[in-house]
């Protein structure tokens, strides 16, 4: 591969709304809230923005941010890549800066999910298929997001010989940890601690996943201001640098009979590519913290193995020993994760970076991790097998 993004682009400002059931806030309200926090944090004027990228599944065109923000006559691109939408908007913006075309650009990710009238996720699907949707004309087996990921949990338990009770405890501890972190975060959708008993006794959504194994469905927006790395210090003394930007998009696993349903190849591949780009050789030791795509507790567990934080088939030991808690060896979801912070789809990738950015600057309050060096974020778009996974590494 010819180029690397490492240390060519810096984040000089970020913003993030409170996530949750924002009954009184429109898309525009949340976009303005996130963007103006980022402007203020970067110390720039909106007129300084040279180009914009917006990540959303629901909105169409770049006008979804130009109109509320009154960004006049600059190029703005809407980007969509499933649950990796926000991360991919960030990636495209970073490449434009690295290419030397723009000095200062804006990234906004947002989603307004709670106007649907449903508790669960409601994404409109296309009747004519293509891509995610393998079947046409509405002819396909019953599909829900928890259902798809639940099949992985069933297989993980079976493959590694976990009883239903042991398996549910393993994934349940993932959520207990995220709730403990979320309780420390005023911007979180859910700010309550839960016990393992509560998690295990909760109503089943899609066996074996219970209510607390599923992330929040939330409204929210997050924003970032990116500049060329060599100009970053003009804006602030503590900019955060992009070390790696990778996306791995699969096209095969769904149809293969040698796929194990206990790992996600795209996570593994995007991790390897990101580690190479950032110069990381021992992820478990060198990555100081991570925000990964815990749409469901089983997904986070599998991320830990595929990102090589835990040995294959042995994440249970790390989960149950507290390795991923704020005090552990590699804190994961310090802001509460999708589980507690919530998951407004287009916003999530940018929201994850917001936590890494604040932690690296030492501004994470009660959740502050001691002296983190590198932060990793990773999103999974679509449904395994055959999905797209972004992995981003940032640091000083």
């Amino acid at each position, binding site marked *: 591969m010819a180029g690397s993004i490492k240390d060519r682009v810096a984040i000089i400002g970020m913003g993030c709304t409170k996530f949750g059931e924002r009954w009184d806030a429109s898309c525009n309200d949340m976009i303005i809230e996130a963007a103006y926090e980022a402007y203020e944090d970067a110390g720039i004027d909106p007129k300084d923005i040279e180009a914009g990228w917006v990540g959303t599944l629901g909105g169409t065109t770049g006008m979804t941010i130009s109109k509320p923000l009154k960004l006049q006559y600059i190029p703005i691109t809407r980007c969509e890549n499933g649950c990796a939408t926000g991360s991919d908007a960030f990636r495209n913006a970073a490449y434009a800066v690295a290419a030397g075309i723009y000095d200062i650009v804006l990234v906004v990710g947002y989603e307004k999910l709670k106007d649907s009238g449903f508790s669960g996720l409601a994404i409109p699907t296309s009747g004519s298929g293509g891509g995610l949707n393998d079947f046409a004309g509405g002819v396909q087996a019953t599909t829900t997001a928890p259902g798809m990921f639940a099949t992985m949990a069933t297989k993980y338990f079976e493959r590694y010989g976990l009883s239903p009770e042991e398996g549910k405890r393993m994934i349940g501890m993932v959520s207990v940890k995220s709730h403990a972190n979320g309780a420390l975060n005023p911007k979180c959708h859910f700010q309550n601690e839960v016990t393992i008993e509560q998690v295990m006794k909760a109503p089943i959504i899609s066996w074996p996943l219970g209510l607390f194994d599923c992330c929040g469905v939330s409204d929210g927006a997050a924003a970032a201001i990116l500049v060329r790395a060599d100009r970053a210090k003009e804006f602030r003394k503590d900019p955060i640098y992009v070390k790696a930007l990778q996306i791995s998009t699969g096209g095969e696993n769904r149809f293969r009979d040698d*796929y194990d349903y206990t790992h996600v190849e795209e996570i593994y591949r995007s991790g390897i590519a990101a580690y190479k780009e950032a110069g990381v050789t021992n992820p478990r030791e060198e990555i100081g913290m991570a925000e990964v795509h815990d749409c469901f507790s089983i997904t986070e567990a599998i991320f830990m193995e595929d990102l090589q934080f835990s040995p294959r088939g042995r994440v249970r030991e790390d989960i149950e020993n507290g390795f991923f808690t704020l005090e552990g060896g590699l804190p994961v979801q310090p802001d509460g994760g999708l589980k507690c912070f919530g998951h407004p789809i287009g916003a999530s990738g940018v929201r994850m970076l917001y936590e890494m950015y604040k932690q690296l600057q030492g501004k994470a309050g009660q959740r502050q991790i001691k002296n983190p060096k590198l932060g990793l974020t990773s999103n999974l778009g679509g449904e395994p097998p055959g999905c797209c996974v972004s992995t981003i590494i940032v640091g000083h």
Partner: protein
Amino acid sequence: MVGITSYGAYIPLYRLPRSEIAKTWGVAAQGAGERAVANFDEDSLTMAVAASMDCLKGRDRGKVDGLFLATTTAPYVEKQVSTIGATALDLGRSIRTADFTNSLRAATASLLSAIDAVKAGSLKNVLVAAADSRQAQTQGGMEQTFGDGAAALLIGDSDVAATIEASYSLSDEFTDVWRAYGDNFVRAWEERFTIDEGYNRVLPEAVSGLLKKCGLSPQEINKAVFYGSNERRHKGMGKLLGFKPEQIQDGLFAGVGDTGAALPLMMLVGALETSKAGDKILVASYGNGCDVLLLSVTDRINQLRNRQGIKGHLASKKPLASYQKYLTWRGLVPVAPASRPDRDATSITAVWRERAQNIALYSSKCKSCGAQQYPIQRVCVKCHVKDNYELVRLVDQKVKIFTFTQDNLAASVDPPAVVAVVEFEGGGRGYFDMTDRDPQEVKVGMPVEFTFRKLYFDRGVHNYYWKVMPPR
């Protein structure tokens, strides 16, 4: 000689005791026993397909050149359903398809047409499938006496297991049970009149007509198959016709119920299952007249013993958990909608485009590396060669569960939605709903079979697809 060369039948898995219905409404039970209840995803078409699959077991479906589908409860009023059945059964396009409907005699009408077509030499192997799932208003007697089921017969002129010796038909203008355009439920006129002046007058007249034509007496018939809407009427008719109880074929009242147009053929399959070479079988339908046929069993009958048929399907059953399930499955009570987004309208264009994949259930098998994959892939998942594959039907393959979930979030008439990733014997995997299952019994590694079912009815379109179920 023209006759029956194969047979099959289908009875839904679930049975509801008549006493349960009677208890619910505080009305008298219409006899003992139970009625068969089609699952929420079954209708006359899917049951006809199931019976046809039973009938075609071990047969070359490529040789079938006609499919006649008989029912009074076709899913469409305007649009042929035998074409959907022919596609699901993978019978090819160069066949004659026809729907026979509007009368409880529809099945024998289609059978006689098939016989005539083969006799005339215009068709060689005609599959006749009859199914019914008639709706009755709640609390009424017919709610208890009706049942759901299907039968299928293959008609040809070689290797015949039961030859057609003679037939006799009577047309009788009479309105006893009927549904007008837009009626969801069967209407019935006063039974004292309809039995005396209809059933008890016309059916004996036709049976005598046939026996006279053949120079036979009732004593010379080994098995008498004749329609009866309930046990009492059926018993009375046996006496009227002069048959001894041991000659009379079981009317399926104890375990299935009145399956309408399908009943005479289901009873005939029941008779064939226990018949021996040389047996004479009389078959009489009833509905706006009467069709009577005389069959003679040959020694080929012994080669058809591996069908699930009536006997196998009667034994393979599960009690319906409650009468309320029946109400919701038949759409007789308003049910709170699942808290899920409305589905998109079915694209008839897209359904047509993908008919081989979705209705005939074809996978693609790479000719370069042999990898089988579903849905059909133009670029091979393993060796990545483009457009070098053959189509392979998955329905014929052994299937087992690789992993699964029980989904309470998904909209389902019968929650939880059990959805499974399955492995095909020929390689590759697929993602299918599981039906006729006890959620507690579903396990990784469990063998399952394909069954043609209705996914949903939406905005006037019935959307059919395949599901998996535990073997019956």
